[in-house]
């Protein structure tokens, strides 16, 4: 099969290169050049003191050493991962559940259009506006506290922004709410690609809905599923807007909700090109390693 395809297509193959041109040109100009600048900068002491430029002085790996030995890089990495997992686990479960409900011909849910439309809506709100709303609603004298105290659940208003668990929980909740619709749509598009006849065949064979889900849906969904996990992981590692606005950039209490990009942002803010560059390179390496692991684990049994 493979060989046949190859021989038939070979004379068209130069078009493969032609179709790559737009991507490559834009990539080189708008991403590669800035990226090279960033990597190059990471080996220099180079920052602004007020309006005065300090450096650039070549200092080798000193920026990297400083980040790895002095900074709380590991702490921020763990914060990021904790908040990502707290949000992603419910998100993916919810998405799989909704996706399988929507695509299940047996259930014949009514108002499907309405539900499918509604789940993506939270993503339309700007993350900053969303965080602003949460901040207001969960304020110490805000409506959520009034309700909780009114119902007798709490004796005193709870300061959501002053406790590690509640801040991380809110961040995770918001991320989950903003992205589960997106994930559901992706999974659904994949599920719809699975032919109805496969389901029907499984049903005729007497498979239960649970069996159909695990034996038919999930394996066929694998490419899209891998996509969802990897992009969400990358998105999670880049988590920024929500905790930034919710905690006013501090990542408090005691930086327990400070993410890697919030940390990077602190160096960008002070125009510390050297440290920011080094941190960016480390982030890149980290993301690559994690994605490779996910890819290996999920795609493992595909390589027969």
């Amino acid at each position, binding site marked *: 099969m493979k060989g046949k395809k190859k021989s038939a297509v070979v004379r068209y193959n130069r078009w493969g290169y032609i179709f790559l041109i737009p991507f490559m040109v834009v990539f080189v100009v708008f991403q590669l050049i800035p990226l090279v600048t960033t990597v190059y900068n990471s080996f220099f002491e180079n*920052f*602004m*003191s*007020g*309006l*005065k430029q*300090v450096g650039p002085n070549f200092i080798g790996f000193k920026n990297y050493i400083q980040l790895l030995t002095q900074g*709380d890089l590991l702490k921020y990495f763990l914060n990021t991962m904790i908040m990502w997992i707290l949000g992603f686990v419910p998100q993916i479960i919810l998405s799989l559940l909704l996706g399988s409900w929507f695509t299940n011909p047996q259930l014949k849910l009514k108002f499907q259009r309405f539900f499918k439309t509604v789940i993506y809506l939270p993503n339309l709100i700007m993350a900053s506006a969303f965080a602003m709303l949460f*901040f*207001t609603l969960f*304020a*110490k*004298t*805000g409506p959520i506290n009034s309700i909780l105290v009114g119902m007798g659940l709490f004796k005193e208003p709870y*300061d959501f922004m*002053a*406790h*590690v668990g509640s801040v991380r929980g809110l961040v995770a909740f918001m991320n989950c709410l903003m992205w589960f619709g997106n994930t559901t749509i992706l999974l659904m598009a994949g599920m719809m690609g699975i032919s109805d006849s496969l389901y029907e065949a499984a049903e005729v064979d007497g498979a239960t809905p649970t069996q159909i889900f695990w034996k038919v849906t999930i394996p066929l969904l694998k490419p899209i599923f891998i996509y969802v996990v990897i992009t969400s992981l990358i998105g999670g590692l880049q988590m920024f807007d929500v905790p930034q606005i919710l905690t*006013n950039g*501090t990542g*408090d*209490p*005691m*930086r327990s909700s400070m993410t890697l990009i919030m940390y990077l942002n*602190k*160096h960008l*803010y*002070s*125009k*510390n090109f050297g*440290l920011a560059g080094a941190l960016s390179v480390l982030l890149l390496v980290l993301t690559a390693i994690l994605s490779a692991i996910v890819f290996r684990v999920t795609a493992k049994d595909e390589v027969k």
Partner: protein
Amino acid sequence: MKKRMMSLVSMALIGAMVLPNAAFAEEAADEGKVLNIQVWNEEFKSRITDHYPGYEAVDETHGKIGDVDVVWTITPSDDNAYQNNLDSILPGNVDAAADDKVDIFLIEADYALKYVDADVNVAMTMEDLGITDEDLGKQYTYTQDIVRDADGKLRASSWQACSAGLIYNREIAKEVLGTDDPDEVQEFVKDWDTYNETAAKMADAGYKMAATVNDTYRVYSNNVSAPWVQDGKVVLDDNIKKWVDDSKTAVDNNETTTAELWSDDWAKGFFPEGKVFCYFGPAWFFNFSMHGDEEGSVGHDGGWGLVTGPQGFYWGGTWICAAQGTDNPTLVKDIILTMTTDNDVMKEIAQADSDCVNNKEVLEELAADESGNLAILGGQNPYEMLAAGAELVDMSNTSPYDQGCNEEFQGAMKNYFDGNATYEEALAQFNTAIVEKYPELVTE
């Protein structure tokens, strides 16, 4: 003599008003045709539109003064975007094309020193612009100290003097302290020890002394004995440490909270059900921010009073800089003189926009007559007090790092007040944060 000269100046300006630009049209004939102004909000634009003689608005971001086109560039200060923008254009301003040159940019007290630095040299000295100390003689000293470079030369000028005081809820004062007379109330808050005793009384009666610890911070930090940064080292002043100790006690005793300024939790006390005894702020604060126009608010019923409080301080203010490299020096000079020294214009600003203007003579006038009485303060006239306060503000202990240090310090200490960290841990986080923000600094 000086008075007469001033009236001559204002007559000249009235002349300019009648015949727009006749005065500098000749002088400025060979100067630039575009006046570029960098700002972070609409404040200065509306002051110019309303009060600068001869300014005609064309649209939201364009205007005309004579045959010069005025172009406003507004960059919000969120995420430091305004300063980033200045930092990218000011250093190359001298070599920029004539119509692109920045002519005027505005700065705030918190980062003023960064832009008036003599080495950086992005703002012209008032001297080079042809503005003399005498021209600026009616301004308050503190508004000048903050924009003086290392050689003692002025590089900016402001139309506002933002000395501030303690604003108290009259009802609560009557109930707990037995009086709402400013002079008597001042006795209950005359220094920090008395203030803290009063705070305990307030807590017993079910009131918060202040809405948050961040309300008092500015008062302590304006009264330090040394700058935040000395020889590249961050040094914690005793008065700041005192804020930490006082605030921790106050939070633990339920006398105040750790809410952010401008947050909903903080603003609750503008209404009677918020149960907050006092706020700290200048004229613009009590005129606008306290929801005075809202039915049911404390301010609506004239329920506030103003006293000096434990220590004098100031809050806010905007300074005008002439950008180095401007091709409209004559016009820029005229704008600075008109907006920051002219009695008539400044009185107009004070009355129309509630700015406490940077002009001793105008404030004296306002203090003397009834027009200075404010309804929100139950008819009290604050100008004498504000004028006296402006004389007392001491800016000798500012450093270019104040904005970052103050923000990071309050942020870090919140963890200590909330019980999420010990003092030492919170201090360590401050030290980390400050070196991230200013890599050139070392900490104790």
